[in-house]
């Protein structure tokens, strides 16, 4: 796949600990084509967050390479947008000013007016119209996460990195935000990597699901999800969806070491 926008090639990484090196990623390969949205699932502590930091250029892998848009990632770049489980909004700024924060760092051809219009437009897209001048503390957890998504997209990043952004939300709010994500993607096409623990989330949002093995993580299983238009929550309750979830759940059990791998099962 030569046209990959995000290309992770044979990445291996270990953390130095007092007990010696702790390998977290082992010869990991993931590639995401332009406009693609890949969900990465795997057991806890398998190095998923390390992966996001590598793609964002916040860390360098021990061996292997991360490429974004044909350029090797060596340091942070302004063409990346990030959102975390913790929305990390700045309490002393209004929601609008929070969303516009990245524009104070990266250079943009937009005028001040265009910047603000874009921020307001994004907030409207995620259903936060009327909350522009509120403080983060006046918003619910789900609303804060919506604002955080707007902030990650404000500077029109080529790559969106989402590290369990919906992990701390209740189930209904989460499903609501899944639909918001589809609305956003329809209007603001991006290439994305989504780290998640939620298998339903992965098949609802992504067009490819990558299952990582237990630590040190490597690509254990890849599932392509065919996409035709924007899915509805009903699509999660079809026999196909149930089959996919079953397969993924089984793969996670293998990754956790709770179920033997196919070859070893004999």
């Amino acid at each position: 796949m030569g046209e990959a926008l995000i290309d992770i090639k044979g990445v291996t990484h270990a953390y130095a600990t007092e007990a010696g090196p702790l390998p977290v990623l082992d010869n990991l390969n993931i590639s995401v084509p332009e406009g693609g949205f890949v969900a990465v699932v795997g057991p806890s502590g398998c190095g998923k967050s390390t992966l996001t930091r590598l793609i964002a250029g916040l860390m360098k892998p021990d061996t292997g390479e991360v490429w974004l848009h044909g350029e090797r990632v060596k340091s942070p770049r302004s063409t990346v947008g990030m959102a975390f489980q913790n929305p990390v909004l700045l309490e002393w700024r209004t929601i609008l000013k929070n969303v516009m924060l990245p524009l104070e760092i990266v250079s943009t051809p937009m005028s001040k007016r265009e910047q603000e219009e874009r921020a307001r437009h994004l907030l409207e897209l995620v259903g936060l119209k009327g909350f522009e001048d509120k403080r983060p503390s006046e918003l619910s957890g789900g609303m804060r996460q919506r604002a955080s998504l707007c902030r990650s997209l404000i500077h029109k990043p080529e790559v969106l990195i989402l590290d369990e952004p919906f992990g701390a939300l209740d189930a209904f709010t989460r499903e609501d935000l899944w639909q918001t994500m589809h609305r956003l993607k329809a209007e603001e096409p991006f290439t994305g990597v989504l780290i998640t623990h939620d298998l339903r989330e992965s098949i609802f949002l992504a067009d490819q699901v990558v299952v990582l093995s237990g630590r040190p993580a490597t690509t254990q299983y890849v599932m392509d999800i065919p996409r035709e238009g924007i899915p509805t929550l009903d699509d999660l309750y079809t026999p196909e969806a149930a089959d996919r979830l079953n397969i993924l759940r089984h793969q996670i059990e293998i990754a956790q070491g709770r179920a033997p791998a196919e070859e070893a099962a004999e």
Partner: protein
Amino acid sequence: MSFRKVAVPLVAMVIFLALWELLVWANGWPNYIMASPSDLPAAYSRFWELFLVMGWQTLWRTVVGLLLAIAFGVLIGMIMGFSRTMRDALYPLLVGFNAIPKATVVPIVALLFVGAHDFNTILIAFMISFFPIAVSVSIGLSTLEPEYRDILRSLGASQSTIFWKIALPKTLPEFFGALKVAVTLAFIGTNLMEIVSPHGRGLGALFDSGKTNSDYPLMFAVLIALAFLGIVLYYVVVALEKVFAGWAERQPT
């Protein structure tokens, strides 16, 4: 500012003064054991000029000492907040320094800089009050969640941008909390020097002269004047906090 906000503390003060008066009256204490609030107006009206002059001396030296403590405390706090090594190196030193009773340092300072009374007083006010500021700033900076750094760092922001846009404002509530402690500490420092060092300046000196002249109501009047100055300065800090870190206060909903 609602009527309730002003009335409640005022009523509390009146009740406090009444209880004090009652205590002295019930025990039949003469004013050389304990002066009562009714003794105070006489002391104030007799020495009002001295109270103004010496109150001002105490106030400005306390404020200068406090400003120095803020500058130095924030600097040390930044160094300790950003560097683990510096934190490990400086913490025991700071704690040890803070543990030394400043009353014991007063004669040393007075001998070290003989005659430099203003300087000595400011120095003690500074020494006694920078510690909480340094600790709060260092804790505020070192406990900044990594995600806060990451949202800016992932865009290629420099360390100083991260400091000005995120680390500094995020530390302000802790800083003001410490400043409220430091304000009262600085007053203690100033008075320590004024009472111990015989230069006849500040409310501490007025207290001392009350003591030598057996003017007990004057001594109590000085204490109340000090308390008043302390309250004024404290609320100046509260007002500054409202301006610069008002966002940290949760709206009652």
